[in-house]
């Protein structure tokens, strides 16, 4: 059922002949994280070290860091006692980055570029745009291959109004990397089209979720249709509200729950009011991982209506929890989930119909829940880590290095 990956995009899972020494140029690391990048770094880092590899994780933040054996944390000013940078950075909550933020990014990159006490390094792996300039400089100076993972692009995050400064940093990384990892085929194509990345060097490695304990289904009187994610324009939450408005007359008992925070919050609140569905929609704000699992256990349907979604890990988490899921066709997660309904992001009528079908037909709900769980969990971070090693080995070999 899975659509075959295009030739050139797939990665073989291989074991390295010896432990690799990896410098990972990252951003966040748990427990302090606002987005999926921190979780990704943590999960992939943990699995890589379980395979015997060693990681020096570079981050602009001072910690605390959830410890993982085999991972050492490095951050600017690590030797001195300075005040840690603001967390979360203003950029995440405030919309556009301002100059102090750019200054601190530049400081981070400058620090990376001049790192000297690293010891032998096999590969440098940078995530997204934050540290590309420093990582490229470091790779050049040490003469080691650079690998870059792109989780999303500035074009996507800004819905087509990118900040050139960030696009430029993405371009630096994509050009300097000998291998680029995209989290979906859709994103891979964008890197080829928009950033002129050489198709031969772009690989696809999907995200994964950790199997959580399957909670007993909560069976409240009110049925819940759930969205979890940031309230950003690219997430298409207004489609979710418009679909809800279509259903409220037929399903007055259903509650539409929106968990997450972001710049769109007040606009969405107004939209719900103007659609006259205020009584049927609940905005929960930020939820913890634990709260999210409880929410999923009590939900009948999960909806990810993103306009743009390079991957969409929230949908995979819902599927792993056995909640039947509806995703937009353009999301990366759609590429690996035939057990989810796939809808055009603009089609509120179709989202509404799909939600109604899942609410109305219990056999469908059960079958999609089972299939989704299987699809979300049949492969996990261990497989993704082995694929990442495959890319590292390709990168090292492409530099004519023996291992």
């Amino acid at each position, binding site marked *: 059922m899975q659509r075959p990956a295009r030739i050139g995009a797939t990665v073989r899972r291989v074991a390295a002949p010896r432990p690799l020494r990896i410098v990972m140029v990252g951003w966040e690391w748990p427990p302090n994280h606002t987005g999926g990048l921190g979780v990704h770094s943590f999960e992939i880092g943990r699995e890589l070290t379980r395979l015997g590899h060693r990681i020096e994780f570079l981050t602009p933040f001072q910690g605390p860091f959830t410890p993982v054996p085999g991972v050492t944390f490095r951050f600017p000013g690590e030797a001195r006692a300075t005040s840690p940078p603001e967390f979360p950075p203003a950029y995440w909550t405030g919309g556009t980055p301002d100059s102090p933020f750019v200054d601190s990014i530049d400081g981070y990159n400058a620090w990376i570029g001049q790192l000297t006490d690293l010891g032998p390094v096999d590969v440098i792996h940078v995530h997204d745009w934050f540290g590309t300039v420093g990582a490229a400089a470091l790779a050049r100076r040490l003469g080691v291959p650079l690998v870059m993972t792109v989780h999303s692009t500035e074009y996507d995050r800004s819905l087509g109004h990118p900040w050139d400064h960030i696009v430029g940093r993405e371009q630096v990384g994509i050009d300097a990397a000998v291998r680029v990892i995209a989290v979906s085929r859709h994103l891979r194509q964008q890197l080829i089209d928009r950033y002129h990345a050489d198709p031969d060097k772009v690989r696809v490695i999907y995200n994964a979720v950790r199997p959580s304990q399957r909670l007993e289904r909560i069976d409240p009187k009110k049925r819940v249709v759930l969205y979890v994610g940031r309230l950003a324009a690219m997430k298409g939450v207004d489609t979710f509200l418009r679909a809800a408005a*279509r259903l409220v007359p037929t399903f007055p008992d259903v509650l539409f729950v929106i968990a997450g925070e972001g710049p769109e919050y007040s606009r969405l609140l107004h939209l719900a009011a103007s659609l006259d569905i205020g009584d049927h929609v609940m905005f929960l704000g930020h939820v913890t991982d634990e709260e999210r699992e409880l929410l999923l256990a009590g939900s009948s349907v999960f909806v990810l209506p993103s306009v743009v979604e390079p991957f969409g890990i929230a949908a995979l988490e819902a599927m792993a929890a056995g909640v039947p899921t509806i995703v937009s066709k353009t999301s990366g997660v759609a590429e690996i989930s035939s*057990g989810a309904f796939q809808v055009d992001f603009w089609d509120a009528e179709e989202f509404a119909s799909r939600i*109604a079908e899942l609410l109305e037909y219990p056999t469908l709900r059960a079958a999609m829940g089972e299939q989704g769980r299987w699809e979300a969990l049949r492969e996990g971070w261990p497989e993704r880590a082995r694929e990442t090693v495959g890319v590292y080995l390709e990168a090292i070999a492409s530099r004519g290095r023996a291992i």
Partner: protein
Amino acid sequence: MKIVLYLHMHQPWRLARFRYLDLGSGRSYFDVDRNLGIFRGIAERCYRPTLDRLLRALETHPDFRLSLSVTGTFVEQAKVAAPDVLDRIRALVRTGRVALLAETYYHSLAFLVPPPELAEEVALHRAMLRSEFGGEPKVLRMTELAYSDDLARFAEAERFHGMLAEGWERMLRGNPPTYRYCAVSAPTVMLLLRHYPLSDDVGFRFSSREWSEFPLTSEKYARWLASTPGELIGLFMDFETFGEHHSAATGILEFLSALPDAVAKEPGLGWATVDEAIVGPPRDTLSVPYTMSWADQNRDLGAWLGNDLQRSAFEAVKKVGVVVRQSRDPTILTDWRKLLTSDHFYYMYVSGHGADQGVHDYFSSYDSPYDAYANYMNALSDLRRRALERLGVPILK
């Protein structure tokens, strides 16, 4: 040894996307344009070239014979999309060496719903054959080659002289599939069995490069046929095998054209229609107390009713059938019968692994079995609503 070549012609009325929000809208369940478009494509690639080749073979080989089944939904679509395809079938029938088989008009699972649905659909189909092609069928084939002792009893009651069934080892119990048998439940009904290895050599394996016998030539195939012991070889397959399941580029059409010649060169090898093949004493009686089909590895109804989605949809359509009949509205009854077409249930098949999934995906008209189920249930819910309205029952909701 006689070859009984039997080809099955069918196209379903596929559903349009019928959204939950379309309930009560009066929209049609069936996407007529899309169905006709598909039909025209297959007519071009398969029906026309294959029918032409078969006619030529009948003209040049006086010994050549074959049998056809043509569903009512196929004829309905052909009339609009490609009437010349029907003319070509008529030309075949006029040679007198092409037998037509009876079946359900809607290629449906009518044999699993309470009477009188099955008898009515078979009668509809008989009437259609009479008016479109002339003649009376003697042999019955059930949807997806379904067969059981009960169905043989039905065939006897309907005065058919023969039925088709899968030559499946499990029910043959050591008997070879290459003879005529009769049903233990209905001794006047002769059974002709599908030789599935030889049928699938053409139907499934012909274009497979991984197959050790690739490429299959008509000479090699005729030799296999000649060396098979017995009296009858049932080669039963979809008509779309020629030009559609295997595209023209695979050489399947040339294979078919050359087959009568190759068969003529093998001593002792000839052809028979199903009507001819049922004449003669049966080798033995056969008992099939369950329903057998020609599909998938298990030869059961698992392809249509094997999972929860399929069973749930089928139970629902059966239940709706009760109010549909009560409504006495012919339009509602016709729509219900189109929903009983087996293809809709096939689209809801889920396996995710195994050899059969590829076959199912190939035939599906949906992105996933979940799409198929949801869409079907929406149409069925709407139909139920219409039937209840007709009966004056207030709709809750």
